[in-house]
């Protein structure tokens, strides 16, 4: 084998990730559905690894979901993103981290378009000035939150309290990694590992002790499709594509699905519930349970010993308990659905065919 040649080919898919001083842009979807994951992510990088990670409360949505639902012109998102860059400049940072994959794809595309069409960037400078009296310079580095988890995977592994190993069998947990389409399918060279063999989640899973499942529909879209999910009349598109993935991964008996996109996470979680309630079918290897679906931040935090309920894992529909038990995580079952200070919030209704605890 020509090792040098291989190295050269893969060098295109290595991603340089700076080691400190990050500016954070939150994800609309993650904030709604799994806000604990964002908090754990910041806490890990800031407090476990001692890095400077800044969040400016004045930042907003990038408008990515509206753009990909064809309701806004690209200039609108370009200018909103230029405003976020301006906030980053003002705070004295050069490394921009986004938590949403749609947003990461859009940032990447916009930076690429500006590179190839400086006249468009010049126009956005004018528009931002006209709207907000702000100026901006582009970031030196653009990262997705999963890039950061990949970058810090060996540090996470050093602090691992519950690695991705089945404590009953001593075997690595079987993990399906699902990468959001817009992470690397548009601009493979801006990701860790490219679009055909992305390493961003696989590298993290392996560093934490798990083994990655290769299955036929591994790279198939989760089925979000923007308008295909957001409009109720189209939602069968989303469900059908997720169903296709589950049918394809089922023979491999995964213990866990790890995602980097907050949208994919929601769909792979919630459509399991819909499949169970409409057809009776569940995909977990414990009868009556689904396959837990966690983000790269949630998996990292769990491995590092964060309490699952502080992390907000109760906000997933598919019960995570079978996974916690396999990992040997210590947790208090009775606190799952409690509020601050143990406040009684009742419990969610039990679905007919898929268990929630």
């Amino acid at each position, binding site marked *: 084998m020509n090792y040098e040649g291989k190295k050269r080919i893969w060098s295109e898919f290595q991603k340089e990730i700076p080691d400190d001083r990050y500016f954070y842009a*939150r994800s*609309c979807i*993650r904030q*709604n559905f799994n*806000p604990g994951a964002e*908090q754990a992510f910041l806490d890990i990088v800031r407090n476990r690894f001692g890095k400077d990670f800044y*969040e400016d*409360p*004045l*930042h*907003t*949505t990038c*408008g990515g*979901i*509206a753009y990909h*639902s*064809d*309701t*806004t*012109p690209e200039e*609108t998102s*370009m*200018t*909103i993103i230029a*405003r976020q860059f301006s906030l980053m400049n003002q705070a004295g940072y050069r490394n921009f981290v986004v938590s949403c994959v749609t947003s990461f794809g859009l940032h990447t595309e916009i930076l690429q*378009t500006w590179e190839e*069409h400086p006249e*468009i960037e010049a126009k956005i400078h004018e*528009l931002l000035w*006209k*709207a*907000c009296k702000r100026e901006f310079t582009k970031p030196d580095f653009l990262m997705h939150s999963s890039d950061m988890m990949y970058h810090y995977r060996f540090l996470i592994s050093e602090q691992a309290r519950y690695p991705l190993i089945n404590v009953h069998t001593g075997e690595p947990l079987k993990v399906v990694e699902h990468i959001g*389409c817009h992470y690397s*399918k*548009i601009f493979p060279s801006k990701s860790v590992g490219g*679009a055909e063999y992305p390493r961003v989640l696989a590298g993290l899973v392996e560093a934490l002790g798990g083994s990655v499942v290769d299955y036929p529909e591994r*790279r*198939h*879209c989760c*089925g979000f*499709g923007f*308008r295909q999910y*957001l*409009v109720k*009349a*189209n939602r*069968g*598109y989303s469900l059908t*594509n997720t169903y296709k993935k589950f049918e394809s991964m089922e023979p491999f008996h995964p213990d866990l699905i790890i995602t980097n996109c907050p949208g994919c996470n929601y769909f792979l979680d*919630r459509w399991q519930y*819909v499949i169970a309630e409409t057809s009776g079918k569940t995909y977990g290897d414990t009868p009556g349970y689904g396959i837990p679906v966690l983000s790269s931040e949630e998996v990292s935090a769990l491995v590092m010993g964060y309490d699952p309920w502080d992390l*907000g894992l109760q*906000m997933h529909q598919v019960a995570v308990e079978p996974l916690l038990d396999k990992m040997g995580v210590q947790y208090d079952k009775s606190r799952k659905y409690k*509020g*601050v200070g143990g*406040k009684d919030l009742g*419990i*969610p*209704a039990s*679905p007919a065919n898929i268990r929630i605890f």
Partner: protein
Amino acid sequence: MGKIYERLMSDVRLQEGLKACINCGTCTAVCPAAEFYRYNPKNIVNIVQTQDDDEIIKLLKSDTIWYCGECMSCVTRCPRTNAPGQVIIALRTLSVELGYFVESEKGRQQYALAKVLCGNILNYGYCVHPETFKYAAHPEYGTVGKWIEDHLQDVYDRVGANYGKSGPGPLRKIAPESLEDLRKIFDVTGGSARVEKIKALSRKKAEEMGLSEEEYFNEVFNETHGEHLNQ
């Protein structure tokens, strides 16, 4: 070369995303929309490349261009580095600009999308927000989603979100000056004009169909009539 084709080609996404197609069908083979809907991205690329305005206008008035999920799976695999998904975005943009989107059932859904998503951005500073993402319209949110909705502040407080409050953190209240910035950005970049256009043309269509605005919203959001599925 037709005028509509010329206008389409002025879109930078089309300049970058359309070279001579070799009809290999790779895009269609990997396309999640092509399996579900009567949809074939290869044919879309072909029609655009005919440069035939009549054919392109038919496309702009059809359901077809609204079937794509903009996943961009086709972009990775096209041996000609074409981007059928980007061609679709350019076609949809033109369909709205020329007012053709109201001619198809799937195109009319732009009314619901623009109203909800741009409303969320301008009113809350988020694309998705708990005030408008409701279990009733999203039953797949599940029993856990219903429980979250019923105990919204308590659940968000429990997991460390900053729901509805000032300062940083998840779901923080976006400050009025930031919302004002977003509104001004919408105004100067054509965002507001696009939304207004979608709303005005939709109101006209609703009238034609004998529906009130609310009935029209419910119709486009909930109902499906045509033969869309690839069975």
